[in-house]
C-alpha cells in the first residue's frame, strides 16, 4: 500500500460516512445517489445513540420534496413505507408570555400590486392578521390537505407543503434507498480515531477492523466523535431538554404540527399515519415538568446544547447535521440545516486530497446558513421578556445581533424586508412570522395610497372569501391520505 494521503493532488476516491442516525441515513442515500461508482463509500453504524434526533423536530420544509427526489426517495415511498404525513406548517397557540396564536405556513410569493408588497396594503387598512389571505394557513387550521396543482390560478397552487415525520421512521426510508443503491452498513463501535497533522488517518473499530478513507463524514450527532478527535470547538448557546412519546391514533390528525406554549417551554403534537408524536421542550432545570406532559409515556429524551461548530469541516472531516449545529425545532430549521449541509457537501465533494479550497468555501457557506437560520428561530422570541420561566427568559435574552436587528427595525418601522444572500427562509416565511409575532409596520409604502381604499377592501374581501370557500371543499387530511394510499397501491409497478 503506497497510497499516500500526503500526496496533495492524489484523487479523492474513498468516503466514509460515520453514524447511522437521521443525518447518516439521509447523507448516505444522497451521496450514493449522486456520486459516481468510482467513488467508494463506506458506511458505519457506531451503535444506537440517536435519542437527540428528536431535536430534528417533526416537520420538514417544502424543499424536502426536491431534496428527497435527488436522493432517490420519492413521495410515494415515504407515504407507503413510513408513517410520514403532510405538513402545511405549524400552528402556534399560547406562544410566549404574550400568548400569541398563528399558523406558520409556507407560501409562494404573495400578490404584489403596483410593485408594493402585499403586507403594505394590509398595513394601510390596519389589518393585523394576514391569515385569511393564506390558503395553506386556512387549510391547516381546518385539518385539510390536497396537493397544490402547479401553475394554476386557484389559491391552492400558492400553498407549499412539507412533511410531518418521525425522524426514526423517516430515516429508515433513506437507509433503505441507500442500501438498494449498493451501500453496505457495517456495525461497530469506534475504538480510536487516529489523527495526524489535523487529518484523520484511520478509525480503529471495536470489531478489530481499521477504516481508512480520504474524506470522513461525521454523522455521529451532538457528540461529533470525529470532529471532537480533531479538536473542533463548539459554541454552545442554550441548553435544552426534550422528551417525546407516541400515542396511537386510528384517524390521521391535522395537516399541520401544533405547538403550544407552556410555563416550562412548549409542547408539540404532530400527526403521523396511525399515531401521533408528542414532544415537550424545556430548560434542563424544568425537566420534570416537560416529562410530566407525557403522562408517563416518554419513549425518548435528550439533553442538548443549542449552538454550532466554529467550522464543521476540519482537515479531511466534515460534520453533518447535529454534529455541526443544533437548532431548536420550533421551525423547520433543523431539517433545513441538515438538507443544506448535504447539498453543500455534494457541490463541494473534494476533487483531490488537498481539500483546502472546498473546506474554506464549505465553512463560509455553513456560517451564512446557520447564522441565518438562527436568526429566524431567534425571531420567535420577543427580546427582553420579563418572566419567571427559565425557558422564556433564556430564549428572550439571546442577543439579536446586527443583521437581525436590521431586519426587525426596518420591518417594524416601515414594513421593509431586509434580505441577505441566499437565505434559507424566504420573504413569505419572514412576513408570516412577523405577523404571527404581532410585529406591525409603523408606516407603509405611500404608493399603496394610489389604490382607492374601497377597491382594495373589495379585492381583499374577494380574495379571503375565495380561500375560505375553496378550503371548505378540500378533503380532510385523513380522507386525502386514504385516497392517495389507495391510488398509490394500485399503481402498476
Amino acid at each position, binding site marked *: 500500500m503506497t497510497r499516500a494521503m500526503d500526496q496533495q493532488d492524489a484523487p479523492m476516491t474513498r468516503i466514509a460516512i460515520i453514524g447511522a442516525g437521521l443525518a447518516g441515513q439521509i447523507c448516505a442515500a444522497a451521496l450514493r445517489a449522486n456520486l459516481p461508482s468510482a467513488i467508494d463509500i463506506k458506511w458505519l453504524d457506531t451503535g444506537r445513540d440517536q435519542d437527540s434526533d428528536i431535536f430534528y423536530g417533526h416537520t420538514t420544509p417544502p424543499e424536502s420534496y426536491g431534496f428527497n427526489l435527488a436522493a432517490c426517495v420519492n413521495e410515494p415511498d415515504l407515504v407507503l413505507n413510513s408513517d410520514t404525513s403532510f405538513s402545511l406548517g405549524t400552528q402556534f397557540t399560547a406562544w410566549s408570555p404574550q400568548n400569541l396564536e398563528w399558523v406558520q405556513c409556507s407560501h409562494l410569493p404573495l400578490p404584489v400590486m403596483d410593485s408594493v408588497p402585499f403586507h403594505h396594503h394590509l398595513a394601510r387598512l390596519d389589518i393585523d392578521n394576514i391569515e385569511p389571505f393564506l390558503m395553506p394557513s386556512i387549510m391547516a387550521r381546518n385539518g385539510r390537505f390536497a396537493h397544490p396543482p402547479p401553475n394554476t390560478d386557484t389559491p391552492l397552487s400558492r400553498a407549499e407543503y412539507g412533511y410531518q415525520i418521525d425522524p426514526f421512521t423517516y430515516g429508515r426510508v433513506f437507509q433503505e434507498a441507500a442500501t438498494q443503491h449498493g451501500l453496505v452498513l457495517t456495525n461497530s463501535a469506534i475504538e480510536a480515531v487516529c489523527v495526524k497533522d489535523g487529518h484523520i488517518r484511520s478509525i480503529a473499530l471495536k470489531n478489530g477492523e481499521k477504516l481508512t478513507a480520504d474524506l470522513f463524514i461525521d454523522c455521529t450527532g451532538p457528540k461529533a466523535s470525529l470532529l471532537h478527535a480533531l479538536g473542533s470547538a463548539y459554541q454552545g448557546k442554550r441548553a435544552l431538554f426534550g422528551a417525546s412519546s407516541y400515542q396511537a391514533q386510528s384517524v390521521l390528525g391535522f395537516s399541520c404540527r401544533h405547538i403550544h406554549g407552556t410555563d416550562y417551554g412548549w409542547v408539540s403534537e404532530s400527526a403521523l399515519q396511525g399515531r401521533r408524536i408528542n414532544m415537550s421542550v424545556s430548560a434542563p432545570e424544568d425537566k420534570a415538568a416537560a416529562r410530566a406532559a407525557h403522562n408517563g409515556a416518554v419513549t425518548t429524551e435528550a439533553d442538548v446544547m443549542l449552538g454550532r461548530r466554529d467550522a464543521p469541516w476540519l482537515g479531511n472531516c466534515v460534520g453533518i447535521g447535529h454534529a455541526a449545529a443544533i437548532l431548536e425545532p420550533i421551525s423547520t430549521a433543523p431539517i433545513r440545516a441538515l438538507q443544506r449541509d448535504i447539498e453543500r457537501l455534494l457541490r463541494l465533494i473534494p*476533487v483531490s486530497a488537498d481539500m483546502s479550497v472546498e473546506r474554506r468555501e464549505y465553512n463560509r457557506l455553513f456560517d451564512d446558513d446557520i447564522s441565518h437560520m438562527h436568526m429566524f428561530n431567534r425571531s420567535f422570541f420577543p427580546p427582553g421578556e420579563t418572566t419567571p420561566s427559565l425557558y422564556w427568559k433564556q430564549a428572550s435574552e439571546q442577543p439579536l445581533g446586527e443583521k437581525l436587528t436590521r431586519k426587525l427595525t426596518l420591518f417594524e418601522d416601515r414594513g421593509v424586508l431586509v434580505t441577505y444572500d441566499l437565505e434559507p427562509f424566504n420573504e413569505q416565511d419572514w412576513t408570516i412570522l412577523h405577523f404571527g409575532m404581532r410585529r406591525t409596520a409603523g408606516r407603509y409604502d405611500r404608493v399603496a395610497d394610489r389604490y382607492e381604499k374601497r377597491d382594495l377592501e373589495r379585492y381583499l374581501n374577494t380574495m379571503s372569501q375565495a380561500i375560505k370557500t375553496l378550503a371548505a371543499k378540500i378533503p380532510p387530511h385523513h380522507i386525502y391520505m386514504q385516497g392517495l394510499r389507495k391510488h398509490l397501491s394500485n399503481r402498476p409497478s
Partner: protein
Amino acid sequence: MTPTPIKSICIVGGGTAGWMTAAGLSNKFSDLDIDITLIESEQIGTVGVGEATLPHIRFFNNTLGISEQDFMKATQATFKLGIEFCDWGNIGDAYIHPFGDFGMPINGIEFYHFWTKLCQNSNTHRLDSYSYPVILAQNNKFGHPSEDIRQIESTLGYAYQFDSSLYGRFLRDYAQSRNVIRKEGKIVTTHLNAQNGNVQSVQLEDGSRHTADLFIDCSGFRGLLIEQALRAGYEDWSPWLPCNRAIAVASERLTDLPPYTRATACKAGWQWRIPLQHRTGNGYVYCSDYISDDAAAGDLLSKLNSAPLTDPKQLYFKTGRRKTFWSKNVVAIGLSAGFLEPLESTSIHLIQEGITELIQLFPDMHMRTSDRDEYNRRMSLNYERVRDFLLLHYVATQRDDSPMWQYFQNMTLPDSLQAKIDAWKTRGHIMKYQFGVFLPASWVAVMIGQNLIPAHYDPRVDMLSHDRLKAEAESLRGAVRDGVDRAMRHDAYIQGYGAASGTFAQRSG
C-alpha cells in the same frame, strides 16, 4: 413617530442619472402629493458618454411604460447581446461575454462542468459554440428571446447601445410630461440647516433659492451636495483599478451593424467600440502613469474602424465610491456616488439600482438612520461586487507585456476575489451571490474566455456516460447553429421591427 411625508424633492443635475431619477420617481409617485424639481446647468453640461447598457435597463423602461420602438428610434439604439473582449487573456485572443447561459444544466449541474470534462477528453469546440447569443453576435444577427424555454432562442438576454444624451432628452420629455419642473441655472451655494446639518436649500447664480425636503445629488463627479457640502468622503479604489482617464471620439456608422460592444485591451488600458444606428462610439480608458494623453489620442484614432466625426474629448476620473451614498437628506446617484470604469457597462445599471433602492427605502421627514444605513449597505455591496468583477478581467490573464500588465501581475487581490479565483481554478466552483449584478454565467464567461480552465470538474458529472454526454453536447451545438441560421441580420431586424431612426450622423464643424 407618526409618519410625516416628504412633499418636495430636488434633483441636482440633468445628466443620465438626473433624468433617469426624475423619470423613475415621477412615474412611481404620480398621483401622490410630491413636487419634483430638477436643476441643471447648460453652462456646465453633462459628461455625455455612456452608451452601452445591461439587460436590466429593459425592466426600467418597461416600468415607465415606454415602447421599445419609440425609445430605440429616439436614442439611435441598437441591440446588444454582450461584449466582445479582445486581447485580454493574451494578445490575439477574443471571446464574447454574452447576456445568457452556456448550454443548459444537466441533472442540476451547469453545462460548463460537462464541457470541462469533454475538453479533458480531446474535445476541441470552444464553450462559445454551445452559446446561442455568442454565435448569434458573431454573425451580426439578432432576434428577440423566445418565451418557450424548450427553444434555443429562449437562451439569450439582451440590452441596448444608445446615445446617452438622446436618452437623457427622451426621459426629460417623459418626466416633464409627468409634472417634473425643470430649472436651468448654475448652483453657486448650498445652505445647510444649522440644527440638523441637512441641506436646506440651493442657491442659483441668479440669486434664486430652492428648498426641498429631500435632495438627490446627480451633479456628476464633483458631488456638489454629497461631497462639497456634506463631506461624505471617497473610498479610493485606484490601487485596484488604476485607469484614471479616458478619451472619447465618435466615428461613422459601421456597415455591418454588430449587436455587441467591443473592449480591446491595450498596453495602458483598453479601448471601446460601441455601434449605434447613426454613428459609432469609441474611446480609450487608460492610466496616466503609463501613457500620455496625446499618445492615447493618437493610438485611439489610429485604430478606429470608421472615419472620425468629432474631435476627441478628454475625461478624468478616480475609481471608487462615496463612503456614504446617502448622508443626511441627500442621496447621491450616478457619477456623484462613485465611478467604476465602463468595461462591463455598469454605470447606468448602478444608477438604476440607486433609484430602485431609494424607492424601496423612501424616507419620510424623520430621515431615520436605519433607512440610510440599509441603503448604504445595499449600494456598497453592489459597487464592491462590480469592482471585483472588473478587476477579474485584469488579473485573469497571461499578459505581462507592459508596465501596466506587470502591475496587475504583482497585485495582492482583495480576499473576496482571490477566494473566487481559487475555487474556480481548483474545481470550476462559482462562489455565487444573490445580490449583485453579475450572475455565475458572467464569471464563467470571463474566466474561460481568459483561459482560466478549471483543473477539475464537478465529480457528479461522471454519473453521465461519456457517450451520452457527447451526444447531448453535439445536439446542443446543432441547435445553436440551426437557431443562428434561422435568425435575421441585426440591421435588417431593427428595420423590420420599426425601430430604425433613418438618420446618420455627419462630421460636425
